[in-house]
């Protein structure tokens, strides 16, 4: 049953970069969940975070794929309680970081400022994730970024327009030419 092995191997080979992989393979704790605790404003906020990470270019961006909404569904349904709390606190922390840096809330700063702020947060999160112990909590921005990537590239606009997708390939060829700029297969 090689296909399922493959899933794991890819994770192995790429250093297991995705927190999402834990949804697939980890065990669980039966912690109580905070349900439906995101507001419409939270979704708009998360849409802007996601759009900053994966903006609309000549292909759709995160907002086109409703990634903000997707993030809330994933956090509500798939995250353990302790990670839900980190994520919720993260919304506040991110906004505070914006106020500190630009004296204005995240929703009010412009696209350039958002990019600058999130680039800093990304650097901070990467440094933290690299040195933390496995039992230490994840950084909220790591969660947001990973959910953005997963949510977008497995969405219809992400998979079919930003990436390449063919429902029924009909054949397999193990060696076809590739030139820089050709898109990756969605699946």
């Amino acid at each position, binding site marked *: 049953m090689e296909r399922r*092995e493959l899933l794991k*191997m890819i994770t192995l080979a*790429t250093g297991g970069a995705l927190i999402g992989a834990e949804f697939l393979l980890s065990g669980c704790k039966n912690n109580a969940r905070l349900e439906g605790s995101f507001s419409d404003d939270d979704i708009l906020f998360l849409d802007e975070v996601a759009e900053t990470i994966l903006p609309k270019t000549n292909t759709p961006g995160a907002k086109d794929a409703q990634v903000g909404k997707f993030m809330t569904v994933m956090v509500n349904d798939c995250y353990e309680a302790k990670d839900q709390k980190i994520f919720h606190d993260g919304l506040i922390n991110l906004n505070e970081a914006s106020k500190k840096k630009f004296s204005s809330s995240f929703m009010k700063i412009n696209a350039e400022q958002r*990019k600058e702020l*999130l680039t800093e947060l990304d650097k901070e999160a990467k440094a933290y994730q690299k040195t933390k112990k496995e039992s230490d909590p994840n950084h909220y921005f790591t969660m947001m*970024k990973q959910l953005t990537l997963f949510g977008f590239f*497995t969405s219809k606009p992400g998979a079919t327009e930003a990436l390449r997708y063919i429902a029924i390939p009909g054949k397999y060829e*193990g060696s*076809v*030419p590739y030139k820089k700029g050709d898109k990756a297969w969605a699946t």
Partner: protein
Amino acid sequence: MADQTYDAIVIGSGISGGWAAKELTEKGLKVIMLERGRNIEHIKDYVNANKEAWDYPHHGRRTQKMIEEYPVLKRDYPLNEINLDMWVKDSDCPYTEVKRFDWFRGYHVGGRSLLWGRQSYRINDMYFEENAKDGHGVDWPIRYKEIEQWYDYVERFAGISGSKEGLAQLPDGQFLPPMELNCVEKDVAARMKTIYKGKRSMIIGRTAHITAAHPDRTQCQFRDKCWLGCPFGGYFSTQSSTLPAAMKTGNLTVRPWSIVTKILYDKDSKKATGVEVLDAETNKTYVYKSKIIFLNASTLNSAWILMNSATDIWPDGLGSSSGELGHNLMDHHLNVHAGGIVEGYTDKYVFGRRANGFYIPRYRNFFGDKRDYVRGFGYQGSASRSGWNHDVAEYSLGADFKDALTEPGGWSIGMGGFGETLPYHDNKVTLDKTKKDKWGLNILSFDAELKENELKMRKDMLNDAIEMLEAIGAKNVTGGDTNPYLGRGIHEMGTARMGKDPKTSVLNKFNQVWDAKNVFVTDGSFMTSAACQNPSLTYMAFTARAANYAVEELKKGNL
């Protein structure tokens, strides 16, 4: 109590049950196939077969609610959003674990033939003779020359794609055209040949996908959605292959929701007379009568049915007179993996999604090699080029970052071992009469583990994988051994082994229960040793052979 009579009853509708139904009906017998779960109709009931990640609320991922409801399934990949309806709900069908055993079940028409990995390999005398040579378990009662024609027969019908390699330890078969190794794998296979001088080989996986015209089915479309049920019939399943053939005869009745609770046994004639069935929906009891019974309920459930049958004569059940029923439980031990980066090939990519990979057949303890353990293992794996999930060093977010992710990343290669488990008498299942399932039936208790031989083997599985990947030029090679438990291979075998002697085996060489010759057990429970190859093809071959024998014996008046 309704009472109906058939020529034959087939218990179970998975890979071996489907074959039993096909063979018996094609030989003119009136057959009823009893399946404990729901019906799944080919194509129509593959409800997720055309869905993509975005069609699911969580894009395929598991939720905390699923984790709570599936305490066993959550242990590995089967718990996910895309085919949850194909797996047994743990809470309905509990079992006791004296030692951990991961039991992943599919209770529905087709059974795990809809979910299997489709890798299909023959076993020859290098494996059949091994018990006798090293003294573990009992000797297989047959040799390759007796089963070879049946491998030919089932391969031709099922449709097995593969390459002829002429390997001593992995006989070639009646193959459809092989799938293709990709550009990296081809080069790696060539390097393996040079480095190991033919003692270790990397070949394309032999898989039950049709890669050329095949009657009444459409060729594999390389969608890689096999475990949702294939609307093209691209891979072998009961639904795509054996069931339509059996239905075509007009001799088959299929009854879903039928939990067989016992085989009815007549001590005067020393034969089974039929089965008792509990309707899983109505909880009503029915009796079906027949001349012969094929027991194909899957290794552990077949043992459970036998343990619950003829207990007035044998307290531990039909087939227990040898003391081996429920014992010698085997699986293939998995979860040893290694992987690494392959540099270059940036001007190469693939087209299509190949639900297959490479196979490295066993080489340990063969060809003069001698280890500090017996038997051996094979590897399955693949090379692939990463999609959007790859590191981008230059950018952290924004348009450039997005552009970089929309291009493929680098190549990597990985593989995992499939190790043989020895037939240990004390690796067993027994009845736990203190607990009941949803239907008030007693449940199984598992007491089985990997032992010293397997644990030593796992060290080789890991070290060899890393060594080979480094030898063929992979970089940053890492590996790991996780979860050394039984069950995860989903290759349960051995609880009603065949043998030469009724004192040490449950079945004779034609899969007949020694104590009831009109009961044939042809699922994985008959396996006398596990070898290290994926076993389903062997179940098919033994089932076809046993069905042929059963009908001959029936005609002779011997059953």
